[in-house]
Protein backbone atom coordinates (compact mmCIF):
# COMPACT_ATOMS: atom_id res chain seq x y z
CA UNK A 1 0.00 0.00 0.00
CA UNK A 2 2.60 2.63 0.90
CA UNK A 3 4.47 1.62 -2.20
CA UNK A 4 1.40 2.31 -4.30
CA UNK A 5 1.02 5.72 -2.66
CA UNK A 6 4.64 6.63 -3.37
CA UNK A 7 4.30 5.47 -6.97
CA UNK A 8 1.27 7.72 -7.42
CA UNK A 9 3.07 10.76 -5.95
CA UNK A 10 6.05 10.03 -8.15
CA UNK A 11 4.00 9.74 -11.33
CA UNK A 12 1.99 12.83 -10.57
CA UNK A 13 5.14 14.79 -9.77
CA UNK A 14 6.96 13.74 -12.92
CA UNK A 15 4.11 14.97 -15.07
CA UNK A 16 3.04 18.10 -13.18
CA UNK A 17 6.13 19.61 -11.59
CA UNK A 18 8.19 20.66 -14.61
CA UNK A 19 7.25 23.42 -16.99
CA UNK A 20 5.57 22.20 -20.14
CA UNK A 21 3.04 20.22 -18.12
CA UNK A 22 -0.68 20.08 -18.91
CA UNK A 23 -1.29 23.74 -18.08
CA UNK A 24 1.23 24.94 -20.64
CA UNK A 25 -0.23 22.81 -23.42
CA UNK A 26 -3.19 25.17 -23.78
CA UNK A 27 -1.10 28.27 -23.35
CA UNK A 28 1.00 27.17 -26.30
CA UNK A 29 -1.99 27.47 -28.64
CA UNK A 30 -1.69 30.93 -30.23
CA UNK A 31 -5.42 31.20 -30.88
CA UNK A 32 -6.24 30.78 -27.17
CA UNK A 33 -7.10 34.04 -25.44
CA UNK A 34 -5.91 34.50 -21.84
CA UNK A 35 -9.55 34.25 -20.65
CA UNK A 36 -10.07 31.01 -22.51
CA UNK A 37 -6.91 29.57 -20.98
CA UNK A 38 -8.08 30.57 -17.51
CA UNK A 39 -11.46 28.98 -18.15
CA UNK A 40 -9.83 25.76 -19.40
CA UNK A 41 -7.61 25.66 -16.33
CA UNK A 42 -10.66 26.10 -14.14
CA UNK A 43 -12.53 23.31 -15.90
CA UNK A 44 -9.62 20.89 -15.58
CA UNK A 45 -8.84 22.10 -12.05
CA UNK A 46 -5.37 23.24 -13.04
CA UNK A 47 -5.73 26.55 -11.17
CA UNK A 48 -5.58 24.80 -7.80
CA UNK A 49 -2.35 24.33 -5.82
CA UNK A 50 -0.49 21.13 -6.67
CA UNK A 51 -1.29 19.17 -3.51
CA UNK A 52 -5.01 19.86 -3.97
CA UNK A 53 -4.74 18.71 -7.58
CA UNK A 54 -2.88 15.61 -6.44
CA UNK A 55 -5.42 14.68 -3.76
CA UNK A 56 -8.27 15.18 -6.17
CA UNK A 57 -6.48 13.12 -8.80
CA UNK A 58 -5.78 10.24 -6.39
CA UNK A 59 -9.34 10.17 -5.03
CA UNK A 60 -10.75 9.97 -8.52
CA UNK A 61 -8.11 7.44 -9.51
CA UNK A 62 -9.21 5.06 -6.79
CA UNK A 63 -12.82 5.52 -7.86
CA UNK A 64 -11.92 4.52 -11.39
CA UNK A 65 -12.13 8.03 -12.83
CA UNK A 66 -8.76 8.56 -14.52
CA UNK A 67 -9.74 11.76 -16.26
CA UNK A 68 -10.68 12.23 -19.88
CA UNK A 69 -8.27 11.84 -22.73
CA UNK A 70 -7.66 15.32 -24.17
CA UNK A 71 -7.29 13.80 -27.63
CA UNK A 72 -9.81 10.97 -27.86
CA UNK A 73 -12.43 12.81 -25.75
CA UNK A 74 -13.38 9.73 -23.79
CA UNK A 75 -12.37 8.37 -20.36
CA UNK A 76 -8.62 7.73 -20.19
CA UNK A 77 -9.23 4.41 -18.45
CA UNK A 78 -11.06 3.15 -21.55
CA UNK A 79 -8.31 4.31 -23.86
CA UNK A 80 -5.73 2.48 -21.76
CA UNK A 81 -7.88 -0.63 -21.33
CA UNK A 82 -8.24 -0.97 -25.11
CA UNK A 83 -4.47 -1.30 -25.44
CA UNK A 84 -3.98 -3.75 -22.58
CA UNK A 85 -4.77 -6.86 -24.61
CA UNK A 86 -2.09 -6.43 -27.29
CA UNK A 87 0.57 -5.67 -24.66
CA UNK A 88 -0.37 -8.75 -22.63
CA UNK A 89 -0.24 -10.88 -25.75
CA UNK A 90 3.17 -9.51 -26.76
CA UNK A 91 4.79 -9.76 -23.31
CA UNK A 92 3.23 -13.17 -22.70
CA UNK A 93 4.50 -14.55 -25.99
CA UNK A 94 7.94 -13.00 -25.44
CA UNK A 95 8.11 -14.51 -21.98
CA UNK A 96 7.18 -17.90 -23.39
CA UNK A 97 9.86 -17.64 -26.08
CA UNK A 98 12.45 -16.54 -23.54
CA UNK A 99 11.55 -19.24 -21.04
CA UNK A 100 11.45 -22.13 -23.49
CA UNK A 101 14.65 -21.26 -25.30
CA UNK A 102 16.39 -20.08 -22.15
CA UNK A 103 15.58 -23.09 -20.00
CA UNK A 104 16.39 -25.42 -22.89
CA UNK A 105 19.81 -23.92 -23.54
CA UNK A 106 20.49 -23.55 -19.82
CA UNK A 107 19.82 -27.24 -19.25
CA UNK A 108 22.06 -28.09 -22.17
CA UNK A 109 24.88 -26.00 -20.72
CA UNK A 110 24.31 -27.15 -17.15
CA UNK A 111 24.29 -30.86 -17.96
CA UNK A 112 27.11 -30.70 -20.46
CA UNK A 113 30.59 -30.89 -19.01
CA UNK A 114 32.40 -29.65 -22.07
CA UNK A 115 34.07 -26.30 -21.34
CA UNK A 116 33.47 -25.30 -24.95
CA UNK A 117 29.70 -25.52 -24.56
CA UNK A 118 29.76 -23.66 -21.26
CA UNK A 119 31.95 -20.96 -22.69
CA UNK A 120 29.67 -20.58 -25.72
CA UNK A 121 26.65 -20.26 -23.45
CA UNK A 122 28.31 -17.47 -21.50
CA UNK A 123 29.18 -15.55 -24.65
CA UNK A 124 25.69 -15.96 -26.11
CA UNK A 125 24.16 -14.90 -22.82
CA UNK A 126 26.14 -11.68 -22.65
CA UNK A 127 25.62 -10.86 -26.32
CA UNK A 128 21.90 -11.58 -26.01
CA UNK A 129 21.38 -9.00 -23.30
CA UNK A 130 23.56 -6.43 -25.05
CA UNK A 131 21.66 -6.06 -28.32
CA UNK A 132 19.16 -3.20 -28.16
CA UNK A 133 15.72 -4.52 -29.16
CA UNK A 134 14.85 -1.39 -31.13
CA UNK A 135 17.85 -2.11 -33.32
CA UNK A 136 17.45 -5.88 -33.68
CA UNK A 137 13.76 -5.29 -34.32
CA UNK A 138 14.50 -2.77 -37.05
CA UNK A 139 17.01 -5.11 -38.67
CA UNK A 140 14.55 -8.02 -38.54
CA UNK A 141 11.92 -5.83 -40.19
CA UNK A 142 14.37 -4.62 -42.80
CA UNK A 143 15.54 -8.10 -43.78
CA UNK A 144 12.42 -10.22 -43.37
CA UNK A 145 9.74 -7.68 -44.19
CA UNK A 146 11.21 -5.13 -46.61
CA UNK A 147 13.54 -7.42 -48.55
CA UNK A 148 12.25 -10.97 -48.19
CA UNK A 149 8.58 -10.11 -47.54
CA UNK A 150 8.19 -13.11 -45.22
CA UNK A 151 6.60 -11.21 -42.36
CA UNK A 152 4.24 -8.22 -42.14
CA UNK A 153 5.68 -4.75 -41.53
CA UNK A 154 3.88 -4.44 -38.21
CA UNK A 155 0.50 -4.31 -36.52
CA UNK A 156 -1.61 -7.04 -34.94
CA UNK A 157 -3.46 -8.24 -38.01
CA UNK A 158 -3.90 -7.70 -41.73
CA UNK A 159 -5.93 -4.53 -42.23
CA UNK A 160 -9.25 -5.36 -43.84
CA UNK A 161 -8.41 -9.04 -43.68
CA UNK A 162 -10.19 -11.71 -41.73
CA UNK A 163 -9.14 -11.92 -38.08
CA UNK A 164 -7.95 -15.50 -38.00
CA UNK A 165 -5.71 -17.07 -35.40
CA UNK A 166 -3.09 -17.79 -38.01
CA UNK A 167 -2.99 -14.19 -39.12
CA UNK A 168 -2.63 -13.01 -35.52
CA UNK A 169 0.22 -15.44 -34.86
CA UNK A 170 1.92 -14.40 -38.08
CA UNK A 171 1.95 -10.79 -36.88
CA UNK A 172 2.94 -11.74 -33.34
CA UNK A 173 5.92 -13.93 -34.23
CA UNK A 174 8.57 -11.34 -35.06
CA UNK A 175 8.02 -8.86 -32.21
CA UNK A 176 7.70 -11.70 -29.69
CA UNK A 177 10.93 -13.30 -30.88
CA UNK A 178 12.79 -9.99 -30.76
CA UNK A 179 11.54 -9.07 -27.30
CA UNK A 180 11.95 -12.63 -26.00
CA UNK A 181 15.52 -12.95 -27.27
CA UNK A 182 16.72 -10.60 -24.52
CA UNK A 183 15.44 -12.98 -21.87
CA UNK A 184 16.78 -16.16 -23.46
CA UNK A 185 20.22 -15.09 -22.29
CA UNK A 186 19.13 -14.41 -18.76
CA UNK A 187 17.15 -17.57 -18.10
CA UNK A 188 19.80 -19.65 -19.78
CA UNK A 189 22.44 -18.34 -17.47
CA UNK A 190 20.22 -18.63 -14.45
CA UNK A 191 19.36 -22.28 -15.13
CA UNK A 192 22.97 -23.16 -15.88
CA UNK A 193 24.25 -21.57 -12.66
CA UNK A 194 21.43 -23.22 -10.71
CA UNK A 195 22.18 -26.68 -12.08
CA UNK A 196 25.85 -26.25 -11.27
CA UNK A 197 25.09 -25.30 -7.69
CA UNK A 198 22.73 -28.22 -7.02
CA UNK A 199 25.06 -30.73 -8.68
CA UNK A 200 26.83 -31.31 -5.36
CA UNK A 201 23.72 -31.28 -3.20
CA UNK A 202 22.88 -34.35 -1.15
CA UNK A 203 19.72 -35.22 -3.02
CA UNK A 204 21.46 -35.22 -6.38
CA UNK A 205 24.29 -37.31 -4.94
CA UNK A 206 21.76 -39.77 -3.55
CA UNK A 207 20.11 -40.02 -6.94
CA UNK A 208 23.46 -40.74 -8.51
CA UNK A 209 24.26 -43.31 -5.85
CA UNK A 210 21.04 -45.05 -6.87
CA UNK A 211 22.69 -45.51 -10.24
CA UNK A 212 21.22 -42.65 -12.26
CA UNK A 213 23.46 -41.01 -14.82
CA UNK A 214 24.64 -37.47 -14.09
CA UNK A 215 22.32 -35.99 -16.70
CA UNK A 216 19.28 -37.92 -15.45
CA UNK A 217 19.99 -37.12 -11.82
CA UNK A 218 20.30 -33.43 -12.63
CA UNK A 219 17.18 -33.31 -14.78
CA UNK A 220 14.88 -35.39 -12.58
CA UNK A 221 16.05 -34.21 -9.19
CA UNK A 222 18.02 -31.04 -9.71
CA UNK A 223 16.00 -29.12 -12.29
CA UNK A 224 12.75 -28.77 -10.31
CA UNK A 225 14.69 -27.15 -7.49
CA UNK A 226 16.35 -24.77 -9.92
CA UNK A 227 13.13 -23.81 -11.67
CA UNK A 228 11.26 -23.02 -8.49
CA UNK A 229 12.94 -19.70 -7.67
CA UNK A 230 12.45 -18.76 -11.32
CA UNK A 231 8.88 -17.85 -10.41
CA UNK A 232 10.11 -15.02 -8.20
CA UNK A 233 12.71 -13.87 -10.71
CA UNK A 234 9.95 -13.74 -13.30
CA UNK A 235 7.98 -11.31 -11.17
CA UNK A 236 10.99 -9.11 -10.48
CA UNK A 237 11.87 -8.96 -14.17
CA UNK A 238 8.45 -7.69 -15.22
CA UNK A 239 9.23 -3.95 -15.11
CA UNK A 240 12.16 -4.50 -17.44
CA UNK A 241 10.04 -6.64 -19.71
CA UNK A 242 7.51 -3.79 -19.89
CA UNK A 243 10.28 -1.31 -20.70
CA UNK A 244 11.40 -3.58 -23.50
CA UNK A 245 7.85 -4.02 -24.75
CA UNK A 246 7.45 -0.24 -25.00
CA UNK A 247 10.25 0.10 -27.56
CA UNK A 248 9.35 -3.12 -29.37
CA UNK A 249 5.76 -1.92 -29.75
CA UNK A 250 6.91 1.31 -31.32
CA UNK A 251 9.22 -0.50 -33.76
CA UNK A 252 6.59 -3.04 -34.81
CA UNK A 253 3.60 -0.63 -34.78
CA UNK A 254 2.05 -2.84 -32.10
CA UNK A 255 -1.01 -1.07 -30.63
CA UNK A 256 -0.15 -1.68 -26.97
CA UNK A 257 0.50 0.36 -23.85
CA UNK A 258 4.01 1.38 -24.90
CA UNK A 259 2.97 2.80 -28.23
CA UNK A 260 0.06 4.50 -26.51
CA UNK A 261 2.47 6.14 -24.05
CA UNK A 262 4.70 7.27 -26.93
CA UNK A 263 1.75 8.67 -28.89
CA UNK A 264 0.22 10.36 -25.85
CA UNK A 265 3.50 12.04 -24.99
CA UNK A 266 3.71 13.43 -28.51
CA UNK A 267 0.17 14.83 -28.28
CA UNK A 268 0.68 15.73 -24.58
CA UNK A 269 -2.38 13.72 -23.54
CA UNK A 270 -1.43 13.60 -19.86
CA UNK A 271 -4.40 11.66 -18.40
CA UNK A 272 -3.55 8.82 -20.80
CA UNK A 273 0.19 9.13 -20.08
CA UNK A 274 -0.48 8.74 -16.36
CA UNK A 275 -2.94 5.95 -17.04
CA UNK A 276 -0.41 3.81 -18.92
CA UNK A 277 2.18 4.20 -16.15
CA UNK A 278 -0.36 3.40 -13.44
CA UNK A 279 -1.41 0.26 -15.28
CA UNK A 280 2.24 -0.76 -15.55
CA UNK A 281 2.88 -0.12 -11.85
CA UNK A 282 -0.25 -1.92 -10.70
CA UNK A 283 0.47 -4.86 -13.01
CA UNK A 284 3.90 -5.27 -11.46
CA UNK A 285 2.50 -5.14 -7.93
CA UNK A 286 -0.17 -7.72 -8.75
CA UNK A 287 2.32 -10.06 -10.40
CA UNK A 288 4.74 -9.74 -7.48
CA UNK A 289 1.96 -10.56 -5.04
CA UNK A 290 0.84 -13.46 -7.21
CA UNK A 291 4.35 -14.91 -7.46
CA UNK A 292 4.76 -14.66 -3.68
CA UNK A 293 1.51 -16.57 -3.15
CA UNK A 294 2.29 -19.05 -5.92
CA UNK A 295 5.67 -19.70 -4.39
CA UNK A 296 4.01 -20.70 -1.16
CA UNK A 297 1.86 -23.18 -3.05
CA UNK A 298 4.75 -24.61 -5.04
CA UNK A 299 7.31 -24.80 -2.25
CA UNK A 300 5.88 -25.93 1.11
CA UNK A 301 9.09 -24.91 2.86
CA UNK A 302 8.39 -21.18 2.63
CA UNK A 303 4.93 -21.49 4.13
CA UNK A 304 6.48 -22.04 7.53
CA UNK A 305 9.32 -19.60 7.14
Amino acid at each position, binding site marked *: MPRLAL*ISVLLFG*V*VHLPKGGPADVYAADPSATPEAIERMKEIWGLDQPLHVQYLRWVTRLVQGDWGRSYVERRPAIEVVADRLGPTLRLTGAALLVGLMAGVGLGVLAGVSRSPGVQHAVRVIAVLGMSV*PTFWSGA*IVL*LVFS*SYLRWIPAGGVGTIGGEATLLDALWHLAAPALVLGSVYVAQWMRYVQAGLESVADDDFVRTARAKGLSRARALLRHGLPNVLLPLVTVLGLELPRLLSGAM*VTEVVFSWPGIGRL*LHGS*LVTRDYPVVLGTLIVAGVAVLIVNLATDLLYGVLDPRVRYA
Partner: protein
Amino acid sequence: MRWRVFFHQPLGVAAAVVLLALAVAAFAAPYLAPYDPNAIDLRTLQRPPGGAHWLGTDDLGRDVLSRMLYAGRISLLLALVVTALATAIGTTLGALAGFFGRWTDRLVSLATDALLSLPVLGLAMVAGSVLRPNLWTLAVVLALVSWPILARIARAQVLTLRERTYAEAARALGLRPQRVLFRHLLPNAVAPLIVAATLLGAQVLLVESALSFLGYGMRPPTPSWGGMLNEAQAFYRQSPWLAVFPGLAITLTVSALNFVGDALRAAMGGRGG
Protein backbone atom coordinates in the same frame (compact mmCIF):
# COMPACT_ATOMS: atom_id res chain seq x y z
CA MET B 1 39.08 -8.45 -5.97
CA ARG B 2 41.66 -10.83 -7.36
CA TRP B 3 43.08 -9.07 -10.39
CA ARG B 4 45.08 -12.12 -11.47
CA VAL B 5 41.80 -13.93 -12.12
CA PHE B 6 40.53 -10.97 -14.11
CA PHE B 7 43.58 -10.87 -16.35
CA HIS B 8 43.32 -14.58 -17.00
CA GLN B 9 39.99 -14.17 -18.74
CA PRO B 10 40.65 -13.40 -22.38
CA LEU B 11 37.11 -12.16 -23.04
CA GLY B 12 37.12 -9.75 -20.15
CA VAL B 13 40.51 -8.35 -21.04
CA ALA B 14 39.58 -8.03 -24.71
CA ALA B 15 36.37 -6.24 -23.72
CA ALA B 16 38.33 -3.87 -21.48
CA VAL B 17 40.66 -3.09 -24.37
CA VAL B 18 37.67 -2.46 -26.67
CA LEU B 19 36.15 -0.13 -24.08
CA LEU B 20 39.41 1.74 -23.74
CA ALA B 21 39.69 2.10 -27.52
CA LEU B 22 36.09 3.36 -27.74
CA ALA B 23 36.75 5.86 -24.98
CA VAL B 24 39.92 7.12 -26.70
CA ALA B 25 38.12 7.36 -30.05
CA ALA B 26 35.29 9.32 -28.47
CA PHE B 27 37.65 11.59 -26.56
CA ALA B 28 39.74 12.27 -29.66
CA ALA B 29 36.69 12.67 -31.94
CA PRO B 30 37.64 16.23 -33.00
CA TYR B 31 41.04 14.96 -34.22
CA LEU B 32 39.87 11.66 -35.70
CA ALA B 33 36.68 12.71 -37.43
CA PRO B 34 37.33 13.31 -41.13
CA TYR B 35 34.39 15.77 -41.45
CA ASP B 36 32.32 18.15 -39.35
CA PRO B 37 29.60 15.88 -37.86
CA ASN B 38 26.87 18.42 -38.57
CA ALA B 39 28.05 19.69 -41.95
CA ILE B 40 25.22 19.23 -44.44
CA ASP B 41 26.41 18.43 -47.96
CA LEU B 42 23.64 18.23 -50.54
CA ARG B 43 25.97 16.82 -53.20
CA THR B 44 26.62 13.63 -51.21
CA LEU B 45 23.19 12.47 -50.06
CA GLN B 46 22.92 8.86 -48.83
CA ARG B 47 26.23 7.64 -50.28
CA PRO B 48 26.94 4.00 -49.44
CA PRO B 49 30.06 3.19 -47.40
CA GLY B 50 33.40 3.44 -49.23
CA GLY B 51 35.45 6.08 -50.98
CA ALA B 52 35.75 9.42 -49.24
CA HIS B 53 33.09 8.45 -46.68
CA TRP B 54 34.15 5.19 -45.01
CA LEU B 55 30.77 4.55 -43.44
CA GLY B 56 28.70 6.42 -46.01
CA THR B 57 26.58 9.55 -45.58
CA ASP B 58 23.07 10.11 -44.24
CA ASP B 59 19.97 11.73 -45.73
CA LEU B 60 21.49 15.20 -45.30
CA GLY B 61 24.86 14.23 -46.72
CA ARG B 62 26.52 14.22 -43.30
CA ASP B 63 29.47 11.85 -42.81
CA VAL B 64 28.30 8.82 -40.80
CA LEU B 65 31.76 8.01 -39.37
CA SER B 66 32.23 11.53 -38.03
CA ARG B 67 28.75 11.53 -36.54
CA MET B 68 29.36 8.13 -34.95
CA LEU B 69 32.55 9.39 -33.29
CA TYR B 70 30.85 12.47 -31.88
CA ALA B 71 27.81 10.42 -30.89
CA GLY B 72 30.12 8.08 -29.00
CA ARG B 73 31.30 11.08 -26.99
CA ILE B 74 27.77 11.88 -25.89
CA SER B 75 26.71 8.30 -25.27
CA LEU B 76 29.83 7.30 -23.33
CA LEU B 77 29.93 10.53 -21.33
CA LEU B 78 26.27 10.09 -20.42
CA ALA B 79 26.76 6.46 -19.41
CA LEU B 80 29.75 7.44 -17.28
CA VAL B 81 28.11 10.41 -15.57
CA VAL B 82 24.83 8.58 -14.97
CA THR B 83 26.57 5.50 -13.58
CA ALA B 84 28.73 7.62 -11.28
CA LEU B 85 25.73 9.61 -10.04
CA ALA B 86 23.52 6.55 -9.62
CA THR B 87 26.29 4.67 -7.82
CA ALA B 88 26.88 7.60 -5.46
CA ILE B 89 23.19 8.00 -4.65
CA GLY B 90 22.48 4.27 -4.48
CA THR B 91 25.50 3.37 -2.38
CA THR B 92 24.95 6.18 0.11
CA LEU B 93 21.23 5.53 0.57
CA GLY B 94 21.62 1.76 0.59
CA ALA B 95 24.49 1.86 3.07
CA LEU B 96 22.62 4.20 5.39
CA ALA B 97 19.53 1.99 5.20
CA GLY B 98 21.51 -1.17 5.95
CA PHE B 99 23.49 0.41 8.76
CA PHE B 100 20.88 2.39 10.64
CA GLY B 101 17.86 0.18 9.95
CA ARG B 102 14.53 1.28 11.43
CA TRP B 103 12.83 4.18 9.67
CA THR B 104 15.83 5.01 7.49
CA ASP B 105 15.69 1.49 6.12
CA ARG B 106 11.95 1.55 5.73
CA LEU B 107 12.04 4.84 3.83
CA VAL B 108 14.88 3.87 1.52
CA SER B 109 13.45 0.41 0.87
CA LEU B 110 10.08 1.93 0.06
CA ALA B 111 11.62 4.29 -2.51
CA THR B 112 13.72 1.46 -3.93
CA ASP B 113 10.77 -0.90 -4.27
CA ALA B 114 8.53 1.78 -5.76
CA LEU B 115 11.07 2.76 -8.40
CA LEU B 116 11.95 -0.84 -9.17
CA SER B 117 8.33 -1.70 -9.86
CA LEU B 118 7.94 0.91 -12.58
CA PRO B 119 9.29 0.48 -16.10
CA VAL B 120 12.40 2.69 -16.11
CA LEU B 121 12.03 3.54 -19.76
CA GLY B 122 8.44 4.76 -19.33
CA LEU B 123 9.43 7.13 -16.52
CA ALA B 124 12.42 8.41 -18.47
CA MET B 125 10.20 8.93 -21.54
CA VAL B 126 7.80 11.10 -19.56
CA ALA B 127 10.60 13.07 -17.93
CA GLY B 128 12.39 13.47 -21.26
CA SER B 129 9.21 14.67 -22.91
CA VAL B 130 8.27 17.34 -20.36
CA LEU B 131 11.82 18.50 -19.64
CA ARG B 132 13.28 18.69 -23.17
CA PRO B 133 16.61 17.77 -21.65
CA ASN B 134 20.16 18.85 -22.31
CA LEU B 135 23.09 16.60 -21.46
CA TRP B 136 23.07 17.34 -17.73
CA THR B 137 19.32 17.18 -17.09
CA LEU B 138 19.20 13.95 -19.07
CA ALA B 139 22.00 12.56 -16.90
CA VAL B 140 20.16 13.53 -13.71
CA VAL B 141 16.89 12.02 -14.96
CA LEU B 142 18.57 8.74 -15.86
CA ALA B 143 20.48 8.65 -12.57
CA LEU B 144 17.31 9.26 -10.58
CA VAL B 145 15.63 6.23 -12.15
CA SER B 146 18.61 3.89 -12.02
CA TRP B 147 20.05 4.16 -8.48
CA PRO B 148 17.75 1.61 -6.77
CA ILE B 149 19.69 -1.48 -7.92
CA LEU B 150 22.88 -0.13 -6.38
CA ALA B 151 21.00 0.78 -3.21
CA ARG B 152 19.75 -2.78 -2.87
CA ILE B 153 23.22 -4.25 -3.22
CA ALA B 154 24.85 -1.72 -0.88
CA ARG B 155 22.16 -2.35 1.71
CA ALA B 156 22.55 -6.12 1.53
CA GLN B 157 26.34 -5.81 1.79
CA VAL B 158 26.25 -3.50 4.79
CA LEU B 159 23.66 -5.70 6.48
CA THR B 160 25.99 -8.71 6.39
CA LEU B 161 29.25 -6.81 7.02
CA ARG B 162 27.77 -5.06 10.03
CA GLU B 163 27.71 -8.37 11.92
CA ARG B 164 31.39 -9.14 11.28
CA THR B 165 33.77 -9.11 14.22
CA TYR B 166 35.80 -6.18 12.90
CA ALA B 167 32.68 -4.07 12.74
CA GLU B 168 31.88 -5.05 16.28
CA ALA B 169 35.46 -4.21 17.28
CA ALA B 170 35.20 -0.80 15.63
CA ARG B 171 31.98 -0.12 17.50
CA ALA B 172 33.47 -1.39 20.75
CA LEU B 173 36.32 1.09 20.35
CA GLY B 174 33.70 3.79 20.55
CA LEU B 175 34.02 5.06 16.98
CA ARG B 176 31.23 7.21 15.69
CA PRO B 177 28.70 5.32 13.56
CA GLN B 178 29.54 7.39 10.46
CA ARG B 179 33.18 6.39 10.81
CA VAL B 180 32.34 2.71 11.27
CA LEU B 181 30.13 2.78 8.19
CA PHE B 182 32.27 4.78 5.81
CA ARG B 183 35.77 3.77 6.94
CA HIS B 184 35.28 0.16 8.01
CA LEU B 185 32.23 -1.28 6.28
CA LEU B 186 31.95 0.38 2.87
CA PRO B 187 35.55 -0.24 1.78
CA ASN B 188 34.85 -3.95 2.19
CA ALA B 189 31.75 -3.72 0.04
CA VAL B 190 33.53 -2.07 -2.87
CA ALA B 191 34.09 -5.17 -5.02
CA PRO B 192 30.42 -6.15 -5.52
CA LEU B 193 29.56 -2.49 -5.99
CA ILE B 194 32.10 -2.14 -8.79
CA VAL B 195 30.64 -5.18 -10.55
CA ALA B 196 27.11 -3.83 -10.15
CA ALA B 197 28.16 -0.39 -11.38
CA THR B 198 29.77 -1.86 -14.50
CA LEU B 199 26.64 -3.82 -15.34
CA LEU B 200 24.53 -0.76 -14.55
CA GLY B 201 26.64 1.20 -17.03
CA ALA B 202 25.59 -1.27 -19.72
CA GLN B 203 21.93 -0.91 -18.73
CA VAL B 204 22.16 2.88 -18.70
CA LEU B 205 23.63 2.91 -22.18
CA LEU B 206 20.77 0.73 -23.43
CA VAL B 207 18.11 2.90 -21.80
CA GLU B 208 19.75 6.10 -23.02
CA SER B 209 19.92 4.87 -26.61
CA ALA B 210 16.33 3.59 -26.48
CA LEU B 211 15.30 7.00 -25.16
CA SER B 212 17.17 8.81 -27.94
CA PHE B 213 15.78 6.35 -30.48
CA LEU B 214 12.24 7.24 -29.40
CA GLY B 215 13.10 10.93 -29.60
CA TYR B 216 13.16 11.82 -25.88
CA GLY B 217 16.92 12.03 -25.48
CA MET B 218 19.38 14.55 -26.80
CA ARG B 219 17.88 17.01 -29.27
CA PRO B 220 19.06 16.98 -32.87
CA PRO B 221 21.41 17.89 -34.41
CA THR B 222 23.58 16.68 -31.48
CA PRO B 223 24.41 13.15 -32.58
CA SER B 224 23.89 10.15 -30.30
CA TRP B 225 23.82 6.54 -31.42
CA GLY B 226 20.15 6.06 -30.57
CA GLY B 227 19.34 9.43 -32.12
CA MET B 228 21.08 8.50 -35.37
CA LEU B 229 18.90 5.39 -35.61
CA ASN B 230 15.87 7.58 -34.99
CA GLU B 231 16.76 10.09 -37.70
CA ALA B 232 17.50 7.33 -40.21
CA GLN B 233 14.24 5.45 -39.62
CA ALA B 234 12.60 6.60 -42.84
CA PHE B 235 15.65 5.66 -44.90
CA TYR B 236 16.44 2.18 -43.59
CA ARG B 237 15.32 0.61 -46.86
CA GLN B 238 17.25 2.83 -49.25
CA SER B 239 20.30 3.22 -47.02
CA PRO B 240 20.61 0.18 -44.73
CA TRP B 241 24.08 1.27 -43.54
CA LEU B 242 22.37 4.08 -41.62
CA ALA B 243 20.58 1.40 -39.60
CA VAL B 244 23.54 -0.94 -39.19
CA PHE B 245 26.49 1.10 -37.88
CA PRO B 246 25.00 3.00 -34.91
CA GLY B 247 23.30 -0.21 -33.73
CA LEU B 248 26.58 -2.08 -33.98
CA ALA B 249 28.28 0.63 -31.93
CA ILE B 250 25.66 0.33 -29.18
CA THR B 251 25.84 -3.47 -29.16
CA LEU B 252 29.65 -3.42 -29.09
CA THR B 253 29.85 -0.97 -26.20
CA VAL B 254 27.11 -2.60 -24.14
CA SER B 255 28.49 -6.10 -24.61
CA ALA B 256 32.01 -4.88 -23.77
CA LEU B 257 30.69 -3.45 -20.50
CA ASN B 258 28.81 -6.67 -19.79
CA PHE B 259 31.86 -8.83 -20.51
CA VAL B 260 34.03 -6.69 -18.24
CA GLY B 261 31.39 -6.91 -15.52
CA ASP B 262 31.24 -10.67 -16.00
CA ALA B 263 35.01 -11.03 -15.68
CA LEU B 264 35.09 -8.75 -12.63
CA ARG B 265 32.43 -10.89 -11.01
CA ALA B 266 34.51 -13.98 -11.64
CA ALA B 267 37.55 -12.18 -10.20
CA MET B 268 35.52 -11.53 -7.07
CA GLY B 269 34.87 -15.22 -6.65
CA GLY B 270 31.40 -15.28 -8.17
CA ARG B 271 29.76 -13.41 -5.32
CA GLY B 272 27.29 -10.53 -5.54
CA GLY B 273 26.34 -8.46 -8.55
